[in-house]
């Protein structure tokens, strides 16, 4: 019993690096590898909350298990250059996300809102590595109602799918890449992905990729700005969502009235910073 558990943990250890390259603290604790110093608050947050068999077992009696000043703070997108996407992948995604949410006076396009940065940081981080995915075999295609059945993490899924899409686009358009297609052809290509009509080499269907992609784009567009998308809360402003407000009780009875609050994220908003 212990052997099989330890094996699984070792596999996890090898794949459980966070976006800064640090090994997930939970795994270190499981192995007692205290020689490796891990100080990243982000790793600590994941460790405390990752579900089953995360940190050390604690025995609690006659007290409240509460640590002063400890907060499971979110892991914000880091600044700097792309961390996961290649230049070619970023070019594809920049063009594609702006067909899903195009520029116009209503509000920012997806790329203007930072969605490509969001996707890059997500794919480089815990989500991209298959955090909260079960990826063990054996693998079968399954029915639609059985959901995701790939062996790939989201990062691997994007890597394979984007390459396969560009290959298919090149075959159909004399070697052009997606970003060089005219907008109408880009839209047609995306619609063929959405329906699954675009045949791809390899194990990933265009339909499965499109479903994950559209979901991730909406996440980036409407998530808290701390994750790299929804820059300046402009996507929230476009629809009228005021953001991370604590208390709306003064407006509960103001039926049909505009709620006069400014859009704000978990890290505040422009003009709030002390410095």
């Amino acid at each position, binding site marked *: 019993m212990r052997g*099989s558990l330890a094996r699984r943990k070792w596999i996890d250890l090898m794949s459980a690096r966070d976006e800064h390259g640090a090994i997930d603290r939970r795994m270190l604790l499981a192995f007692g590898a205290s020689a490796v110093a891990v100080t990243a608050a982000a790793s600590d947050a994941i460790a405390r909350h990752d579900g089953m068999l*995360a940190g050390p077992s604690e025995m609690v009696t006659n007290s*409240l298990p509460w640590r002063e000043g400890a907060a499971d703070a979110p892991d914000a997108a880091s600044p700097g250059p792309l961390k996961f996407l290649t230049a070619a992948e970023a070019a594809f995604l920049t063009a594609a996300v702006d*067909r899903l949410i195009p520029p116009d006076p209503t509000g920012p396009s997806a790329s203007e809102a930072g969605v490509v940065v969001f996707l890059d940081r997500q794919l480089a981080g815990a989500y991209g590595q298959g955090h*909260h995915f079960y990826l063990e075999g054996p693998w079968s295609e399954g029915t639609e*109602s059985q959901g995701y059945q790939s062996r790939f993490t989201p990062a691997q899924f994007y890597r394979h799918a984007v390459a396969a899409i560009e290959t298919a686009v090149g075959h159909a358009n004399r070697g052009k890449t997606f970003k060089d297609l005219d907008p109408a052809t880009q839209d047609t290509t995306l619609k063929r992905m959405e329906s699954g009509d675009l045949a791809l080499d390899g194990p990933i269907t265009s339909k499965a990729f499109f479903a994950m992609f559209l979901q991730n784009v909406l996440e980036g567009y409407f998530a808290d700005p701390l994750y790299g998308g929804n820059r300046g809360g402009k996507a929230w402003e476009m*629809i009228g969502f005021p953001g991370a407000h604590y208390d709306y009780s003064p407006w509960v009875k103001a039926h049909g009235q505009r*709620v006069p609050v400014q859009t704000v994220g978990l890290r505040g908003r422009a003009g709030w910073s002390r410095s």
Partner: protein
Amino acid sequence: MARTLKQVDVVLVGFGWTGAIMAQQLCDAGLNVLALERAAAQTTPENFATTFDQDELRYMWRHHLFQNVKYSTLTFRNNTSQQALPMRRLGSFLPGTAVGGAGVHWNGQIWRWLETDFKLKSHNEQRYGKTATAGLTIQDMPMGYRELEPHYNQFDLVCGTSGQAGNLGGAKQPGGNPFEGPRSAPYPTPPLTMTYAPTLFGAAATGLGLHPFPHPAGNLSQPYTNPFGAQLGACTYCGFCEKFGCGNYAKSSPQTTLIPYILTKPNFELRTESEVLKVERTADGKHATGVTYVDSAGVEYFQPASIVVLTAYQLHNVHLLLLSGIGKPFDPATGEGVVGKNYCYQTMSGIDVFFDDKLINPFIGAGALASVIDDYNGDNFDHSGLGFIGGSYVAGMVTGGRPIEMTRVPEGVPKWGLEWKKAAAKYYLRSFGISVHGSSYAQAGNYLSLDPTYKDQFGRPMLRMTFDFPPNDLKMTDYVTDRAAEVARAMSPSSIHIKKRQPPYSIVPYQTTHNVGGTMIGATPADSVVNRYSQSWDVPNLFVTGAGLFPQNPGYNPTGTLAALAYMSAEAIKNQYLKAQGAPLVSA
């Protein structure tokens, strides 16, 4: 070889709502109680403080408070002709993990069953004939509403439930649910204040001769101190209940109502990161000796206990019984066996309502903020000639306006592109959803069993779910959704989008975390896993809590009823079982 630990009186497997209820009840009776929790401790200030709680991406879409399928999942298929495959990503239902369980991230929708829900089979056969239940394996509960009522009331007092009674001791009350069974006391706190959408829904329903009332809520309308000294705050309508913890101490949860009290008891201990693998028994199999568990260092322990209570989520309680070989597993081919039988879900549909001329402001919300009608639930309406039994409540509900999940566009608008963008910008503030929350009745092909192929991280067979919507329930939801559309149209919207539930059941889109059945409570060992006190027929010092006890799922959220059943069981342990020195409380 597992290390053997010091004997305790009671070991609880899992520390969510029913673990907390059992711990409080049995510690106060003087027993030494140990709770084993598979994941971490979590508290309001550390894990869902108001400074970072309103984070849709992290909590909803990255599953921060949910069971991690990487370490614990199940396999799923629609029917026995298919190969079951692992649920590789959570979707349809979102079980919790860590201290508090799903009670941390629930909406706080606190319901009681109708009196007729307790005698579902006999009542429907009496009123509509035996053919009404053909093809269904539904059955009666081994107690009636009136016997369980004091325990419903116990839970309301712990939660401070906000609502308007419709029936106090048999006397109908204006503004409440006229169909509910008699209550022994009013709700501890008054209903939440209705925002615009539920107000419009309530007026439309009244205009149609229906009977709207405020949804009973574990999001408190005013500050409240419960009998254990826990102080809850007033809800601020921030719209982050479902899938989120409450940073404001305004949502009833194990953390806000019972755990602070339990953790002051010297005869209680909580052990975190401790996952139970098996219930151990004496050689003759008739007595539980304790449980084997493994901690996060991979060390295995045997924890001896005089009483074992399975207080984990429904799916895990069924899994543990099957893995421990306790009770006869259900076989759909023969109809024999009871463990895993009558797995049921909830039959959900909805209607999106759009206005050109009204600002709904859906971001002002709360988990149970709704005006609701019960006219089409259970047997509150005449089913003669309809071809189905059961029903749904219909709620004009605004749990919040989280924009990734809840940006609605009218029917026919594409899911992306400029047209989508303009519609999203126009209608986010001008729309809301009507929820049609329906019953799920048992049929023999729907059950839980051990998977023959896939193993979990401990090398044990995974739990296998076989489920699809029975024809009865599809007819039911079709009918009630049409009635809900009548209410929607009576609100004079610019458009509505009717989203009926279509087969087959899919584990991909979120529906609801109301998995029930599999450890049925019943009158005889032939038709149930546990007796009326939730005591195992096979192993009398083993008790089981949770929605697994339900022989089928009425059209209500399960927490109120599963909590009441836990209180009834705790009372029987304290007042009968201890005196009976571990004997069966009902003779088989």
